[in-house]
Every structure is written in structure tokens, then in C-alpha cells.
């Protein structure tokens, strides 16, 4: 059982870490202190795909890492999917109560057990405007997880993810400014996201259909996309429009 003071010391150390290696060591050390054997600190994106700013600090059994990457489980992994449904940490044994598991999910979970992973605890990391990620700690097969210290594990997971994010940000080129849309463009994009056609948007806003078409063309140009679906998704991702704009009004 670790203490809050140890967690605080970890937060300070993680925060001061300027390279993935230093952070990796700090996380490795506290993982063992918390009684876990493995951890994975990842963005839920395909890390084999070229890009570069994704976070990936993994200490898992070899067999599992290979199976995971071969199956490209980044977004479809049941643990990752369950983590999209909550803000707080959850034990893997609860996953079946959080999402509907299909045959493939059950096969993934069984394969993880065969690779030597026991029960685990995952802390979601949802930052608006960024790819979802999570920090997971896992026991060895057959080891018992100490529920009493899970609140401490949640703190460690959050601070570890934030430290990794900081390192990834520092290595990446400065964050490009997100395109700015005009008020009118935002209104049009929000209506696109609600499934409206240009003609319908024109009726709703009381302007001509050509005007709407032009607003949406300008908005697509600002994002450098060619499809209205992509425009709506980009605007939603970076916060120009919110789910409330689409679902509530």
C-alpha cells in the first residue's frame, strides 16, 4: 500500500521529467510500489501509422504487445472503448457492465489473460480537442488487486498521462492555431452537423441558399477539407461547435 505522500512525490518527479525515458522509469517504479506488474500509457490511435505526437509508454508482456499491434486494436480494444464512457478509473473486471461485449471483445480479453495479464485498472484521459487516451495498470495473472488503493492509482494514472502529454507536446512543433470560423460559418456548420442541407439551412437562417453554400465552402477551405462531414467533425473536434450545439437546441 502506498501513501499520498509517495503519490505526491511521483507527481513532482513525473512533472519534472523531460524525456520519455525518465518518465518511463518513474512510472515503472511507482507501478511496482502500487503492487502492479504492467502498465500502458497510450493515446487510442494507431501508433504504427505515421504522425508522431501520439503518446505511447508501454510495459506489457511481449506476446500481448505483439498481438495488440498485429490486431490493430487501438480504438476497438474493449478496455479502450469502455474508457470512453467514463471519466473515472475502472477495474477491468467491470468492463462487461460498461459496454456490450461481442465475441471479438471476449476473444481479446481471453488473449490478454493467456499473454499473462491479470486484472487491471484503467484511468481515462479525455482532454477537449485532443485524441482520447488512457493509463492502465495491470496485475500478473492470478494476482489480487488491492481495491483500497485504487484512488491513489487513479491519481498516479492522471498525473502520469499529463506528464507524458507534456513531453509529447514539447517534442512536437508548436501547436498550430486552429482555423477561426466566422459566427455565420459556425451556425452553418452546426446545422450541417444536424444533417441539414444547404437549402434547409438557408430557410432556417433566412438567407439565400447560395450564401449558405459559400459560407460552407469558405469554412471547408479554412480547414483544408473537401467534404461537409469532415468539416463538421473537425469543427466538433477542436471545439468550434459542441455536442450541445448539435443535440440540444
Amino acid at each position, binding site marked *: 500500500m502506498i501513501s*499520498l505522500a509517495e503519490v505526491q512525490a511521483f507527481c513532482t518527479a513525473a512533472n519534472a521529467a523531460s524525456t520519455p525515458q525518465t518518465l518511463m522509469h518513474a512510472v515503472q517504479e511507482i507501478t511496482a510500489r502500487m503492487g502492479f506488474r504492467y502498465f500502458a500509457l497510450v493515446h487510442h490511435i494507431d501508433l504504427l501509422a505515421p504522425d508522431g505526437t501520439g503518446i505511447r509508454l508501454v510495459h506489457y508482456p511481449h506476446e500481448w504487445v505483439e498481438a495488440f499491434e498485429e490486431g490493430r486494436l487501438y480504438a476497438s480494444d474493449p478496455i479502450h472503448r469502455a474508457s470512453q464512457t467514463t*471519466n473515472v478509473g475502472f477495474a477491468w473486471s467491470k468492463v462487461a457492465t460498461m459496454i456490450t461485449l461481442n465475441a471479438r471483445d471476449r476473444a481479446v480479453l481471453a488473449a490478454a489473460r493467456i499473454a499473462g495479464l491479470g486484472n487491471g485498472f484503467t484511468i481515462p484521459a479525455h482532454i*477537449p480537442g485532443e485524441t482520447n487516451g488512457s493509463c492502465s495498470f495491470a496485475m500478473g495473472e492470478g494476482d489480487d488487486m488491492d481495491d483500497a488503493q485504487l484512488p491513489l492509482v487513479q491519481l498516479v494514472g492522471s*498525473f502520469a498521462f499529463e506528464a507524458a502529454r507534456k513531453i509529447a*507536446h514539447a517534442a512536437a512543433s508548436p501547436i498550430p492555431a486552429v482555423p477561426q470560423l466566422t459566427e455565420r460559418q459556425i451556425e452553418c456548420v452546426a446545422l450541417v452537423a444536424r444533417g441539414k442541407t444547404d437549402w434547409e439551412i438557408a430557410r432556417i437562417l433566412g438567407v439565400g441558399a447560395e450564401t449558405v453554400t459559400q459560407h460552407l465552402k469558405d469554412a471547408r477551405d479554412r480547414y483544408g477539407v473537401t467534404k461537409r462531414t469532415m468539416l463538421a467533425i473537425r469543427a466538433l473536434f*477542436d*471545439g468550434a*461547435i459542441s455536442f450541445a450545439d448539435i443535440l440540444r437546441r
Partner: protein
Amino acid sequence: MVVTGNGIEQALGDRVFRSMFEERKRVFVDLLGWDIPTLAGRYEIDQFDDDEAVYIVITDDSGEHCGSARLLRTDRPHILDTIFPHLCEDGPPAGPAVREITRFCLARRLRARDRLVTRNRLISALVRHALHHGITAYTGVAEWAWFQQILAFGWVCVPLGLPSISDPHSLSAMRIDISPETPRLLRQSGTFEPIHLMDLDRAAA
């Protein structure tokens, strides 16, 4: 624009702060359902809105309130030591160089993009205020989802107690360390927004 107000009396005499108290009522009472007092059913004002409270307000070009926070001294009664002392394992950090951030509020009328910009301006203004006034740490309480976002602003945070893992709405306490390095950290995380400070005394003069 950033407007700073000192004490409730000065605040109540000024339009921008009155609209802040109105917005606080819309956010904390109407939206979040907090069980806190209102004045004339219109303003959210509690026992901590006194002569020592400091208000940091972000306004738009026309001087309308967009977002605000209230700073409380920690060497006298404040929220963490009065209402939530159990959230700190070793007692709330307190002293002349520590302020508590409370009533962090963004106007409900703002669209998602403007909320984000206002939020970043408010964070940047809080850091600037701390550096100008010799404040070395802020404290605060937040629900877990908000706690994670505060952490992601890029400044240095330390947890003061344990979160509840069964209730996502339960509160956690944190300390935020402020140093001359902090603006750079905010910039690195994309949180920093250039701001223009204005003291109400000077503005009125």
C-alpha cells in the same frame, strides 16, 4: 480585457461585477444545482464575498462579463478550510502567499470556441495576477473531470487528497504552484492567451 476588483463593496457598485454575480447564479445555481444562497433571486453571493475577496473578470470588447474567478485569502476562513477540510490529507495549504481559486465561471451564452478562449484568458490572467502579487500557489476543489482538465492546462499541480473512484461528481482538492516558469508551461500546453490587465481603480480614474 481583464478587470480586477477588490472586495464585495467595490464589486457591487460596478456593472461588470454585477453581471458576474448574475452569471454565477445562472451557472452554479441554475445549471449545476449547487445549494448556495442567492440575493434577490438574481445574484449568487455567499459569505466569502467580502471585503477581502478579489475578483478577476474577463470581458469582451463591449465590456460584457465572459468569465470570472474569485480569489480568497487562505490566512482567513476560506472554502477549503471551512467547508471541505476533509479533502486535504494534511490540512489545506495556507499562508499569505497562497490564494484559493473559487467560483471559476464561464458565461453560459458563450459558444464552445469562445468558452475555450475565455477559459484560457482567465487562466493566463490568474497566473499573471499571482506573479504580480507574490502569490506562489493557488488551491482549489474540483469534480474529477474538471480536475483532469485543470491538470492539462500545463501548470504544476499537486493532489492534496484522494479522489473517490465510485462517484465521478465527488470533489478533489489540489494545489497549483505558480512560478516565473508557469507562463511558459501554459504556452507549451496551448493554454496561454495574451491578456491585457486593467485594475478597476485605475480604470475608474
